[in-house]
């Protein structure tokens, strides 16, 4: 049993999150299936409907997992039970109803029978990421208000808050507030897209990044009761928040190159969004310092692995795969092709891993059972399957997108030919997605086993493993710099589409081979970095 009874209220949100994650993965599987056989489901469940499920399940389960983390951590931070536990139970019911409501009304898009009230779409909003209708947005916003009220009433006065809690609160409040602009209906497509990116981009680059940095900082402070921790964490949170906010706010410009907004965004977005790699690279480097300074074994190994997952996908997926395509002259080629989802999938997986890390941390505490050997080994398998699967997926998307650029923009082939050109990479997407799905099975079964069945009595003790280059921090900063170089190779690959060598003489092997080197190299570096960081801390090999 946890220290405070009301922490148990986090459990229903965790279960909802797990179920919705499964829905998201199944929808993703159907999307991949559409590329293999486009005819079978067409007319029954159209591609756009399944994609709407894929995105909305993601958003809802990230919300749900964040709620779980908030309700789990707030009592520990304020050293008393949650205020308004009835409201929290109501919120759980509302969340399930809203989810059912969204999933039940999205099929309206197949017949076009949307309801418009006061010039606002009520059932389907028809924009990427914010497909859910206005009706449900209002309920979701009420849910956010409930969370805010409960947290505000439970927490002590803000004067006593550590910086990490400030980050979590600002990030969570930002997530809620930034949900509004993307949902509004504007007559102009340009204005509509302009504000939709406020929701999508500021979630990822601003609110969620800050919130998860804060949550991880708080977790470190709670599980390692050492006065030095607060100082280290405070400094780390401050720089992360400042750098992420500064570069992320104006870095928004990389979405505004070609949507009908003025040309000054090409300069601003080009310059500032490149800076977005800085906070995430520093975060990866800083984590080494924190681990070294604390010199403590980490008590919850699955959670540790998924935290490392956030760091590595944050650095490689969010910032470096983003860097390849954020330069105006490469973005001009890749915009609107499959190069974009290679970055998008790793971005979202970084946040998904943040949510999973928090769930893994909360569950042994909520059940009061020890972190046993099976829990840890299944958790580790879940991590590696998801991590490598996501890299395979992103690499396939990136290479297929590079091929698409040539066939669609330069050869100007009809769409059917473009689909055929991308087709050789679809198996990669299926294999990567399948690995993520297998990882999910390990993840869900490790959690459900811990919740429902008796576990071994002994806590997991890391085995004695021989030190090697793969389990120490040695050379980690070099890998960071090497990864930046591979991203620059990818940049050159996309950029070389502009050269006369490709445009006039058709030397298409230049961009293809540069992209292949970049994506495969970045994938290998990501695995090496994750191995060094996660296994190094697990086995204690980072200590000299």
């Amino acid at each position, binding site marked *: 049993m946890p220290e405070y009874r009301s922490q148990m209220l986090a459990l229903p949100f965790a279960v909802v999150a797990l179920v919705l994650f499964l829905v998201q993965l199944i929808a993703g599987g159907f999307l991949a299936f559409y590329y293999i056989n486009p005819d079978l489901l*067409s007319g029954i469940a159209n591609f756009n409907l399944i994609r709407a499920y894929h995105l909305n399940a993601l958003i809802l389960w990230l919300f749900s997992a964040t709620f779980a983390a908030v309700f789990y951590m707030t009592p520990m931070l304020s050293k008393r039970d949650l205020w308004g536990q009835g409201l929290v139970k109501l919120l759980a019911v509302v969340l399930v109803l809203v989810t059912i409501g969204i999933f039940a009304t999205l099929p309206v898009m197949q017949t*076009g029978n949307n309801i418009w009230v006061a010039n606002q779409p009520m059932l389907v909003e028809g924009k*990427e990421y914010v497909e859910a209708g206005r009706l449900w947005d209002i309920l979701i916003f009420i849910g956010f208000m409930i969370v805010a009220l409960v947290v505000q009433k439970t927490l002590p006065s803000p004067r006593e808050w550590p910086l990490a809690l400030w980050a979590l609160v600002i990030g969570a409040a930002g997530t809620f507030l930034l949900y509004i602009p993307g949902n509004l209906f504007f007559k102009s497509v340009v204005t509509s897209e302009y504000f939709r990116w406020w929701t999508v981009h500021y979630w990822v680059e601003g609110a969620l990044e800050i919130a998860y940095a804060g949550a991880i900082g708080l977790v470190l402070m709670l599980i390692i009761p050492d006065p030095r921790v607060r100082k280290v964490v405070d400094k780390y949170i401050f720089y992360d928040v400042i750098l992420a906010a500064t570069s992320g706010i104006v870095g928004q410009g990389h979405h505004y190159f070609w*949507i009908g907004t003025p040309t000054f965004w090409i300069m601003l977005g080009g310059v500032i969004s490149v800076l977005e790699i800085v906070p995430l690279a520093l975060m990866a480097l800083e984590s080494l310092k924190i681990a070294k300074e604390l010199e403590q074994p980490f008590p919850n190994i699955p959670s540790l692995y998924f935290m490392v997952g956030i760091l590595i996908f944050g650095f490689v997926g969010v910032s470096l795969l983003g860097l390849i395509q954020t330069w105006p*002259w490469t973005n001009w080629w890749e915009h*609107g092709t499959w190069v974009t989802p290679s970055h998008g999938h790793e971005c979202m997986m970084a946040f998904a891993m943040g949510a999973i890390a928090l769930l893994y941390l909360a569950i042994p505490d909520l059940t009061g059972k020890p972190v046993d050997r099976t829990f840890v080994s299944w958790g580790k398998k879940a991590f590696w399957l998801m991590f490598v699967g996501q890299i395979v997926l992103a690499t396939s998307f990136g290479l297929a997108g590079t091929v698409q650029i040539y066939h669609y923009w330069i050869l100007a082939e009809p769409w059917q030919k473009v689909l055929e050109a991308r087709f050789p990479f679809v198996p990669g997407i299926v294999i990567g997605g399948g690995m993520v799905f297998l990882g999910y099975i390990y993840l869900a079964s490790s959690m459900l086993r811990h919740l429902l069945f008796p576990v071994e009595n002994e806590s997991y003790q890391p085995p004695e493993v021989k030190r090697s280059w793969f389990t120490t921090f040695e050379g980690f900063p070099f890998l960071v710099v090497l990864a930046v170089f591979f991203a620059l190779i990818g940049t050159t690959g996309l950029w070389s589409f502009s050269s006369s060598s490709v445009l006039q003489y058709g030397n298409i092997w230049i961009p293809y081979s540069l992209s292949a080197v970049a994506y495969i190299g970045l994938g290998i570096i990501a695995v090496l970095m994750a191995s060094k960081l996660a296994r190094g801390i697990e086995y204690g090999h980072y200590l000299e």
Partner: protein
Amino acid sequence: MNKNYTMTYAYEIFFFSAFIAGIAAALILYVHYARKAKRAEAEEIPFERLGKFMVAFAILLIVILTPLSIDPGRNPDPEVITYRGSTALEGWKVAIDYNCMGCHTIVGNGAYYAPELTYVARKAGDGDNIKSLLSAYAGTKFMPFHLSDEEIDALTAWMLYLKDLNTNNWPPMKDNDYSFASSFDKNAVRWYESFDAWLVYWVLTVVFTVFLVFGMFYWYARG
């Protein structure tokens, strides 16, 4: 075939290698200084006020740039563009009802299962061609839903609107010589866009990037 292909090659090789060389030079500088740098022993959080100022400045910048960005003078008015009596605004609502963005991309954003709509509209050229495309595909396995004649007219008007959006030469087509920088001044609406500034953008971007990114690393290594 371009007669001056040697010159073109030389020019491109110069820019590609200047890019790589600039970044390599900055990296060497960084490694050099990072080795020399002694870790400063900071008691409190250094640069706290500067950091807060930077965030405030970024927010202020976005607030200032938002009205300029959604400048209605830059793009056509969706209520003015019509096709057989339907306005582009009505078409936008139909596009939302059917969630077109779930398969297509619109100005490059959306799903990648079906063609880019701005591109389709520009290739089709005029309203009648767009309408014939829509009529041909609606109700088939590619677009498996029924569209009424009014809905098709409205969508046609909306795609004519997409065609006229001022998207800074995107998407890459023969019409813009496959060059995003070919001439921004063609698209300029206000004074701050009225110079052909791609070279300035290019130089500024590279210089700022190299110095800021590696400057940050340098600053970090100093502690």
